């Protein structure tokens, strides 16, 4: 097997993940992709979607990625994202409550609500639930 790539996930507040990976799957703006080590230099715009990273020690981590970019160069992958959560850190109760709240707001459609914001909140909570395999 090829030498594993180094993978770093960077958010504005911290470096969330820094390690090796044999493979990772994510979703770009135009569809899903998987990257193996020694990929050609590339920049990818990410969608709000789960990201799975397979480490060489045959464990895998799933992250909720809220948009961002992947940069690949010389077997070194940097993922820059405004926000990223590890699946085991997600509060499932809170996410499902947020989903309910957003759905309620969207179904009532009272004039004082911000539809765009509610849709955003719904998308975020759905992603969190998806990453934690609740739906």
């Amino acid at each position, binding site marked *: 097997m090829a030498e594993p790539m180094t993978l770093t996930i960077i958010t*504005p507040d911290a470096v969330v993940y820094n390690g090796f990976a044999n493979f990772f799957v994510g979703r770009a*703006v135009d569809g899903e992709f998987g990257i193996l080590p020694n990929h050609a*230099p590339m*920049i*990818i*715009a990410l969608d709000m979607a789960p990201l799975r990273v397979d480490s060489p020690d045959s464990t895998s981590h799933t992250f909720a990625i809220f948009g961002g*970019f992947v940069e690949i*160069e010389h077997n070194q992958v940097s993922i*820059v994202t405004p926000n990223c959560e590890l699946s085991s850190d997600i509060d499932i109760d809170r996410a499902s409550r947020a989903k309910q709240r957003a759905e309620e707001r969207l179904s009532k459609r009272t004039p004082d609500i911000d539809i765009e914001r509610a849709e955003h909140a719904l998308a975020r909570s759905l992603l969190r639930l998806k990453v934690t395999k609740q739906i």
Partner: protein
Amino acid sequence: MASAQDLRKRIKSVTNTQQITKAMKMVASARLRRAQGKAEATRPYAEKIGQILRRISSSDLHDYLSPLLEVRPVKRTCYIVIGADKGLAGAFSSNVLKKAIEQIGDKRPDQYRIITTGRKPKDALKNRHYKIEYSYSGFSDKPAYEHARIIMGEALSLYERHEVDEVIMIYTHFLNSMTQIAQAERILPLEQPDDEVKDEEYEFMPNPESVLDALLPKYLEITLYNGLLQSAASELGARMTAMTSATDNAGELISSLGLEYNKLRQSSITNEISEIVGGANALQ
């Protein structure tokens, strides 16, 4: 001349004030360290975003020009004024205000839009009859990325609706805890980085244009976030310096009042003794 009792009272009150300023100094210095750490932690992210932006700029964009890079004739300007929620930070707030007023100059109210963060700039600008479009407060010494995202969202939507043709951020650059400089920086339209890195061909997914479109708002957000963090560190630094000098001044005042009090006490004792001695002599 103050009486001994008055002096005692003043010494006590100054001592109390000194205790307060000392506590505020400690709080500010502890928070400053945290704010500096936070500003430091955003650097990898900002650098990476900047690097990706340069990579895209040096690739073939098929003559695509993002609206965020397009320079339009400036009819209206949006100012984002980043200030403090609380005072007692020396000249911090007035420096920001001075810079903002200098930037706005003699523009008519329909030629600018103002977005403020922090209570101080909002109140000060309002008192001077400037019209304020949006104001945010409650996070001046501990901003989060989310705040930068919301504020940038408002500024971007003004820009995209052609309500403003440029966006200027007024913030305080943090050099060290003694020196902070209020600065104005144009953040929109963005300047194309010209230091091209032509070392490697990159592929883009889905294509350079849409990566660029997704990247530019992120770049702006991190620029604004950096401005917020710099201002937060500056505010705390200015407060720490102001409170240090207030504590020192209180110390000086206490010692000079103490000296005066002791002199007064001594002279009254001397007086008493001479009276007693005088009385005893008169009896002989």
